[in-house]
């Protein structure tokens, strides 16, 4: 009898212990995963090696994004269907050696802006005078993103404008203006896309263009003939926009070859990016899809084959909204970061950090999701993210913006959202079945994440401590050394919110090195002038880090084409190895630290 009582007492204690476990885990993880205290610049510098200061006003930028207003049939859920369009991309459009900033606007009649870098800490909008501001006119749709690439190899970056509407290609006239060449190029009359990237998929020295559709391209969102425009499923939808791959013919024209090369998905693409993930010499293509699994296309130089399930990245469906590559362990291999949705107690998808499995390489490469282990899993309703060494300590950190719809702080749409999202496809797929928003928020006013990499497999969120304290509905992030100081600044485009410039101040003992690459394409030999796809592997202090020039990454974003490496204090640089898209390999012995190295592809 006594034994039974003791057993019962132990059982009750065990039960209480079980109930207390979540509190204990929460307490342990909150102490370990984040520095949530706000700190002044001096403290942040001492503690984390850098500090961010929002300087958009001082820099002469007062851009505020406006969301589109679509067909009145969508009025009840307008905040949701019109929740994207803010984007930012970096380009040195006039080749003056200073990065400029292009941002999109999304209301009919609103203007995009090209902020010319004035070299004195300020910017001046030059989009109007250059002819790339008034691009959201009625009947042509609105902008949702922009990517820059020198498609004709004349040395100047050209602009492809991603739209819900008529996409546009603008030729850069040597930095003095832009000429619209959409029809000559052979681009489609209408798309509803949020992502596009430049890549030279076939290695012919000419940049090709991939476009990932979101809404179906036969929908004019301002003149709907039906309200059945929504995804047929929250996680298994295949009724989105088509994909395009435009092969650059070299005469100002492009040929659409997606079906020919093996790309035929109709998932709801939100973020594509390209990098040579297998060391094959050909750029592979990763597409993060909303309402479904991600897709990974291996490229053999002539065609693609989809290997999402085979590699492990295309099995669990989530709400992919970002694709960024980073050599986070300094091993010469890329991890892939895909952002998703996490809302406490309602939907915990968790973001994905796809890290190559030990011992797998080449075509047999497999990925495992280590976001939880690395501490970069939960970021709210996550959108754009980019890897970059924010404190120049020699490891890549991760900046994530987030927040979906910030309206009434005290009323949430989540209940209605979850109600419909779980329903039958005939219900979820029709906008008229969705309850009205009525001014409610949906994962709004969220804190951003600035995850510092310790280089040993752990990231710690220091956003509040280092000054990234905004709570706007962030969409697009780029990292760029805006003022040629050897540090990565951060630019964030917010939906219905201001463009933010976070100026970075880094502890001076940490050193850096940057590379600006230029290909020398001619007669189908050599690399594209933008050097998109070129890889630099830097060897220093017994470690290595690989980075690749990108034709677009993150969410509706494009970082500066210059590659920035942090080195930590007292670096001993052994060499930098450049592998050009043409296949040429160039080695620079002992390149000097704290310098920008301008490299031209050798003949």
């Amino acid at each position, binding site marked *: 009898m006594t034994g039974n009582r003791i057993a019962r007492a132990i059982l009750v204690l065990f039960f209480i212990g*079980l109930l207390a476990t979540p509190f204990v885990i929460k307490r342990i993880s909150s102490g370990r995963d984040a520095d949530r205290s706000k700190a002044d610049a001096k403290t942040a510098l001492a503690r984390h090696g850098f500090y961010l200061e929002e300087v958009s006003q001082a820099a002469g930028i007062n851009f505020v994004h406006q969301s589109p207003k679509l067909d009145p049939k969508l009025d009840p859920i307008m905040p949701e269907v019109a929740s994207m369009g803010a984007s930012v991309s970096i380009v040195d459009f006039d080749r003056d050696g200073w990065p400029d900033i292009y941002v999109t606007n999304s209301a009919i009649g609103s203007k995009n802006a090209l902020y010319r870098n004035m070299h004195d800490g300020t910017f001046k909008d030059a989009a109007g005078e250059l002819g790339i501001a008034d691009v959201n006119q009625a009947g042509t749709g609105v902008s949702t993103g922009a990517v820059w690439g020198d498609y004709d190899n004349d040395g100047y970056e050209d602009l492809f404008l991603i739209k819900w509407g008529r996409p546009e290609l603008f030729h850069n006239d040597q930095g003095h203006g832009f000429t619209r060449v959409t029809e000559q190029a052979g681009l489609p009359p209408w798309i509803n896309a949020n992502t596009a990237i430049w890549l030279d998929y076939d290695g012919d020295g000419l940049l090709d263009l991939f476009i990932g559709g979101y809404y179906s391209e036969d929908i004019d969102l301002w003149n709907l003939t039906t309200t059945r425009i929504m995804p047929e499923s929250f996680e298994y939808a295949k009724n989105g926009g088509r994909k395009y791959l435009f092969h650059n013919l070299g005469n100002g024209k492009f040929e659409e070859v997606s079906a020919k090369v093996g790309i035929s998905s109709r998932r709801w693409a939100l973020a594509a990016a390209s990098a040579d993930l297998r060391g094959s010499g050909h750029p592979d293509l990763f597409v993060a899809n909303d309402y479904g699994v991600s897709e990974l296309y291996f490229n053999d130089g002539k065609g693609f084959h989809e290997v999402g399930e085979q590699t492990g990245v295309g099995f669990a469906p989530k709400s992919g909204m970002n694709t960024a590559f980073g050599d986070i362990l300094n091993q010469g291999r890329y991890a892939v970061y895909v952002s998703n949705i996490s809302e406490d*107690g309602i939907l915990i998808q968790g973001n994905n950090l796809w890290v190559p499995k030990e011992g797998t390489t080449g075509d047999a490469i497999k990925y495992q999701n280590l976001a939880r282990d690395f501490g970069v899993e939960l970021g709210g309703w996550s959108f754009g993210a980019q890897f970059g060494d924010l404190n120049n300590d020699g490891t890549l950190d991760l900046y994530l913006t987030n927040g979906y719809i910030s309206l009434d702080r005290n009323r949430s749409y989540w209940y209605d959202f979850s109600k419909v999202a779980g329903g039958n496809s005939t219900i*979820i797929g029709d906008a008229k079945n969705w309850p009205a928003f009525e001014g409610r928020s949906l994962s709004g006013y969220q804190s951003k994440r600035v995850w510092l990499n310790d280089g040993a497999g752990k990231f710690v969120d220091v956003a509040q401590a280092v000054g990234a304290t905004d709570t706007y509905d962030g969409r697009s992030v780029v990292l760029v050394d805006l003022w040629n100081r050897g540090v990565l600044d951060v630019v964030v485009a917010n939906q219905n919110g201001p463009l933010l410039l976070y100026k970075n101040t880094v502890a001076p003992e940490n050193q850096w090195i940057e590379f600006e690459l230029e290909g020398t394409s001619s007669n189908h030999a050599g690399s594209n002038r933008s050097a998109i796809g070129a890889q630099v592997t830097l060897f220093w202090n017994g470690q290595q880090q690989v980075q690749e020039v990108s034709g677009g990454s993150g969410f509706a974003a494009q970082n500066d084409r210059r590659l920035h490496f942090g080195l930590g204090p007292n670096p001993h640089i052994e060499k930098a190895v450049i592998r050009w898209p043409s296949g040429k390999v160039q080695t620079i012995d002992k390149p000097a630290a704290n310098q920008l190295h301008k490299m031209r592809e050798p003949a």
Partner: protein
Amino acid sequence: MSRQTSTPVLPVQAQKTPWFSLDNRYIAPAFITCILLAGHLSFGILESYQKTLLAIATSIGLELVLGRVFFHKWVHPASAYITGISVGILVRSPAFWPYALCSAISITSKYVLRVKGRHIWNPSNFGISVMLFLAAETVATLSIQWGNYLLPMLVIWALGSVIIWRLRRFHITGIYVASFIAFAFIRSWMTGSPWQSEIAPITGPMYQLFIFFMITDPKTTVRSKRGQCLVVFLVAVVEMVLRLDQIVYAPFYALFVVGPTAMLIEIWVDSRRANAAKLTVTQ
């Protein structure tokens, strides 16, 4: 969701001419396993087999240990298997520990939260509700991960109805579904939301597990058929109230509140009757 009883007692006639040779004790586990496999093979609902296996292993392991210690016998694992697999399907978390913890809480609750020898909460309903209360930043439940297509649901409805009919508990499911639909239209009328949006949840996968396994659990439902109908109707009523307050997991919480309350009332009534009978015998 666990079906805690060995088997509802079938009438003699049914026992003489069984149309289904499988021991009834295995019907529910077999059905839920089919649902899991169908869901996974068609939609890949399991992000990892390991998490589901962890939930099942924890559930069965703990049941065996606790049964041995407190009942001095090896308890049949069918019930724990259903609890484990339910947790494995319904809990959605990127982490592993919530699967083990939810299973452990579910099973342990059967041995701790007992009144007059009966446990009063459906184990997995208790475990999942507790996890949603206490670990909301890590745990959500299945709601959308089975796709949104009609065919899989029709298969589940057909199979589930046959099985639940066989187990003589179809009235519970039927009353609940009818009540839910009626209340959906009332909510639509009250809130102005499209009626389709109010009906939508019951067309999703989470509800199939709820209506076929959780609300019909023999061990945690009252005994009389009329009582069962009343209780499940009250579950739908409380769910409606919670839904009007925009509680996402209204069905779980409604059962969490109404189920044990009904059980306690029945235990209290049984106790009074027993006392009265004892008094009569004594006199």
